[in-house]
């Protein structure tokens, strides 16, 4: 264990935490508006395949990321329509979205399997080259990584410092009261779903364009579900999700770094750490009012008579 090891660990943690953070931020917004979405995995997959396909087709990864965000938002509109207009069960709608998203992503990505892309340009943090233990590959990130924490700050500002955010949270806590106060519940919920879709699409595209630089079916590998756990872990708070995402990203990196170093620690055990911590969070804070889920989370608002 030396500086180099911690540097590598931190560097990898940031890289692999970022897509989780984007997805988690989206899910925080949506859940704050009272909607649990089990279809995050589908949104990420649609983003990953659309992003990769459009990067290849257009020859520009940023066009890919833009289209991925749009694809995520479009897909999540289906979910919003089901739960807002059709008053369908959130659980069933989310599951449907997951299957739909993985099916659609396979169709979109199919012609592009095996295509090569340059990926996103990486920039090293200025000044770090002077630190002796920082190597060439460390702390060199694409723009989406640098934009991740500002995005979390923006979501925090949006939710807690704007009138819109107040309305959104009111819808998630007590839709009847929000309705009585003159808020358009349906529009607010739709806007939350669109933002969730945009961020989820970006998260998926980051995986396929910046990290793996390839598309394979089902490549998100359950990261959409990890984001669901992260929302709970971060107690529905955008800034706390930064730490949650880093912790989950860190577990994967730590496992690989330890293997590469030859430390004989079971990688399966390390993979479990984040979930054990989520369980601990649930056990410790689940009863406390201050940290509870939004009051109307998962409920269907059927309107006022």
């Amino acid at each position, binding site marked *: 264990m030396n500086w*180099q090891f911690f540097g*590598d660990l931190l*560097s*990898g943690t940031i*890289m*692999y935490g970022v*897509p989780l953070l984007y997805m988690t931020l989206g899910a925080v917004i949506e859940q704050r508006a009272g909607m649990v979405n089990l279809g995050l995995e589908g949104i990420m997959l649609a983003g990953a395949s659309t992003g990769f396909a459009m990067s290849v087709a257009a020859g520009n990864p940023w066009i890919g990321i833009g289209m991925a965000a749009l694809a995520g938002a479009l897909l999540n509109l289906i979910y919003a329509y089901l739960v807002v207009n059709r008053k369908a069960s959130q659980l069933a709608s989310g599951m449907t979205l*997951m*299957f739909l998203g*993985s*099916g659609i992503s*396979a*169709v979109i990505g*199919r012609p592009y*399997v*095996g295509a*090569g892309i340059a*990926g996103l340009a990486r920039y090293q943090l200025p000044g770090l080259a002077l630190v002796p233990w920082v*190597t*060439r*590959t*460390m702390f060199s990130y694409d723009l989406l990584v640098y934009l991740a924490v500002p995005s979390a700050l923006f979501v925090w500002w949006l939710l807690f410092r704007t009138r819109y955010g107040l309305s959104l949270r009111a819808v998630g806590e007590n839709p009847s009261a929000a309705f009585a106060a003159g808020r358009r519940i349906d529009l607010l919920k739709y806007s939350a779903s669109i933002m969730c879709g945009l961020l989820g699409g970006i998260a998926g595209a980051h*995986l396929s364009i910046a*990290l*793996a*630089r*390839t598309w*394979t*079916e*089902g*490549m*998100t*590998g359950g*990261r959409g579900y990890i984001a669901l756990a992260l929302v709970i872990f971060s107690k529905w708070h955008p800034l706390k999700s930064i730490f949650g995402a880093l912790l989950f990203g860190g577990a*994967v*990196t730590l496992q*690989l*770094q330890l*293997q*590469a*170093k*030859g430390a*004989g620690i079971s*990688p*399966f055990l390390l993979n479990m750490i984040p979930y054990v911590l989520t369980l601990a969070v649930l056990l410790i804070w689940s009863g406390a009012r201050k940290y509870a889920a939004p009051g109307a989370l998962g409920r269907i608002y059927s309107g006022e008579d």
Partner: protein
Amino acid sequence: MEAKRRRQPRKLALLLIGILLGGVVSAQQSSLVIGLLLPGPKNDAGYNQSFYDAVMQVQRNVPGVRVIVAEYVTDAEAESTMETMIRQGAKLIFPCAFAFQYPALAVAARNPSVYFMHPGGWEVKPNFSNFFATTQLHFYIMGVAAGLMTKTNQIGFVAGMPLGYTLGNVNGFHLGARSVNPKVTTRLLFTFSWGDTTKEAAAAQALLNQGCDVITMHLDSPVAVIQTVEAAGAYTIGFMSPEARKYAPKGWITGLAFNWGDYFTESAKAVMNGTWRTGFIRRGLSEGFLQIAPFGSAVPESVRQKVLAVAEDYKAGRIDPFKGPIKDQKGVVRIPAGVVWGNEKMGDFDWLVEGIIGEPK
């Protein structure tokens, strides 16, 4: 479970398309229909592509052969896919996933006039043969290339699951590298999945961080690893399909590639002539099951010649990669002096050779 379930609608659609196409095409005369079942996409520059390219070679070279390909076949649907192919007239079927062995065996029992050739299994029946390449022995040659090319004396191996065959590949690779460069250390990383591309990229990055400058892999598709290594300016050695070299225009050294085309062609002709025979077949470079992929532009002439010379020595029987004394990581002698770890024991490795950093489980 989920990964399998979510592919079902697509699989059904593929089957329907297959049946429709079959209806159209079967009106034509053809003397042999070959069915190919792949667990993944045909153009993965890896495992699946090696078989796909081979059946396409048969179709090009043998008049009257028609090929039906089913991609993304799940274990649960392998049987019904094979039955559909047989209904379309398939007489020779390649169920090209390890887990298709028993589904294929069941179909073979019901269809004694149809021939099955399964890669990597062990079952043999009158109309069901087994074939694969002895990759473990040949990874030695790849190791020679790695040992000569590394400047940091650190080489890396990204693998999916710790199977005996995989450990054998890693052992062979390391022994080859050590044979030309005694200072080499091989770092082995498992992703515990054959296809989590994001994790594969992270694994390659972790190896690069540890100073590895030559990296190879045993995964379904090498693309994520190769691209990560290429972006970092290091070298890669490919495995399974020679097409992987297009992802590393600068850092490609060489690769160990499957070459099933000639064998498939010969088997197809045998079926057509009625001379097909079953068997348990394990072959390598000499018999054309494997080939050494073209060298990349970064490889100096001296290295090319040395690698090819080792390959010739191996083919001529002058080298046996797994000839003792060979010690494991703890220094215990696993293969005593003069003893050779036999061809039939390539899947039995549960230990790693001295000098490899990694866990054999």
